[in-house]
């Protein structure tokens, strides 16, 4: 395959970036998108040009480290992570635009690498169940109804990649946050902190500069783990009832 790549290049957080065009040939449709970028970097290095910086780690779709805006779609045209996107999803001769996640809460570090530590700070503010090591009761002392356990699991599959924010026209992080609220709120162990959790996380989210949610639904459509939109409703429900949970 022969491709034209238009890639965002930006030397560092404070530098001004711009799109650069590269031609690449001899790409196999079996390669993953990131392997195609690896190959571009090998060629750039051989020519003495600075390779393109991009994040990735597990390359099996679970760590959440990779994430690119590919021709205007978060993680590209398939419902999966960038690392699990393969070149067979493209056609010979295509022009592909590659940009970093765009959100002021996710500042660009270099080229296609962004800083998603805002997500960590949201979790820090309440995305946990306070259970000190060694203080846990016997696991079977609290049964969890299977439907609740299943819903908690579905929400807990979030990989924190940030595609929801990237795809959202408002750059909102509500799907990420809603997934955590739903995961912990569905479980009996999560009830004690249910009210304070949602309030603290929402306050942090808004303070980090994410946009507000207008329920457009692009987040859920872009989510590689197919987290459904109802976690946002659940978050709002918990927020509305947070006073009750705090009593």
């Amino acid at each position, binding site marked *: 395959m022969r491709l034209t790549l*238009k890639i*965002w290049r930006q030397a560092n957080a404070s530098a001004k970036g711009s*799109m650069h065009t590269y031609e690449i040939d001899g790409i196999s449709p079996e390669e993953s998108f990131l392997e195609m970028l690896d190959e571009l970097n090998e060629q750039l290095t051989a020519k003495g040009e600075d390779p393109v910086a991009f994040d990735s780690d597990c390359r099996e779709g679970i760590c959440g480290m990779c994430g690119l*805006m590919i*021709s*205007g*779609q978060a993680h590209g045209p398939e419902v999966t992570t960038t690392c699990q996107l393969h070149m067979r999803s493209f056609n010979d001769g295509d022009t592909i*635009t590659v*940009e970093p996640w*765009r*959100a*002021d*809460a996710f500042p660009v570090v270099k080229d296609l690498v962004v800083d998603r530590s805002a997500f960590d700070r949201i979790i820090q503010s309440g995305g946990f169940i306070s259970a000190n090591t060694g203080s846990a009761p016997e696991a079977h002392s609290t049964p969890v109804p299977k439907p609740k356990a299943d819903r908690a699991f579905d929400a807990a599959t979030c990989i924190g990649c940030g595609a929801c924010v990237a*795809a959202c*026209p*408002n*750059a*909102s992080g509500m799907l990420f946050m809603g997934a955590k609220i739903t995961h912990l709120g569905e479980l009996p162990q999560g009830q004690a902190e249910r009210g304070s959790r949602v309030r603290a996380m929402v306050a942090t989210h808004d303070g980090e*500069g*994410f*946009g*507000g*949610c*207008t*329920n*457009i*639904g*692009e987040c859920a*459509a*872009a989510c590689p783990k197919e987290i*459904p*939109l*109802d976690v*946002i*409703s*659940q*978050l*709002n*429900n*918990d*927020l*509305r*009832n947070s006073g009750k949970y705090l009593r």
Partner: protein
Amino acid sequence: MAVTGVIFVLFVLAHMYGNLKLLSGQLAFDEYAHHLRVFGEPMLPKMGLLWIMRIVLLVSVVIHAYAAFTLWGRANNARSTRYAVHKMAQASLSSRFMRWGGVTILLFVIFHLIHFTIVKPNINADYTQAQIDASPYIMATASFKIWWVVLIYVLAMIALGMHINHGLWSATQTLGWANSPSARATAKGIALIVAALTVVGFLIPPLAVAFGLIAK
């Protein structure tokens, strides 16, 4: 935003119901309009209910618009560098038209209030100002015989329908009532039905007048 939005939807539905009285003829419609003004007497003063509604709606507009512009501003600040290429995956036309659609509706409401409440200008030379002031029925039918007035109302009602279609479903999300896939489907369905009902219900009287389906 959700709460004020729901207030608007309830108002709009009631308003639509009243409008449909137009089909019952001048007597019924004028009687309805009069009754609105004396509703609740003597417990309420004359025009009492109307003013309560006006105040509630006015406050709602302020809150709704304030929230909307705040969200708009936050969205702009949250992504100060735009994408070179951005494709929407599934966003409905309604959801993408909320902000400008909302502005459109606001402008229309101002026009509508001037048209039928505050100034009541006579724009149809076939009628006198006295006739218009005397009968709300005549006021309405006189206007809807003019094509561009009908066109404005048709466009505004389409904008309103789209706004309700996304807005009502969005309100269920914001209020936390769409916590499952089935609840989400129901909410979206109801929103679509209410939106369609609104568009059709509001447009029947003006179109009926425009096409001469109502006598006189």
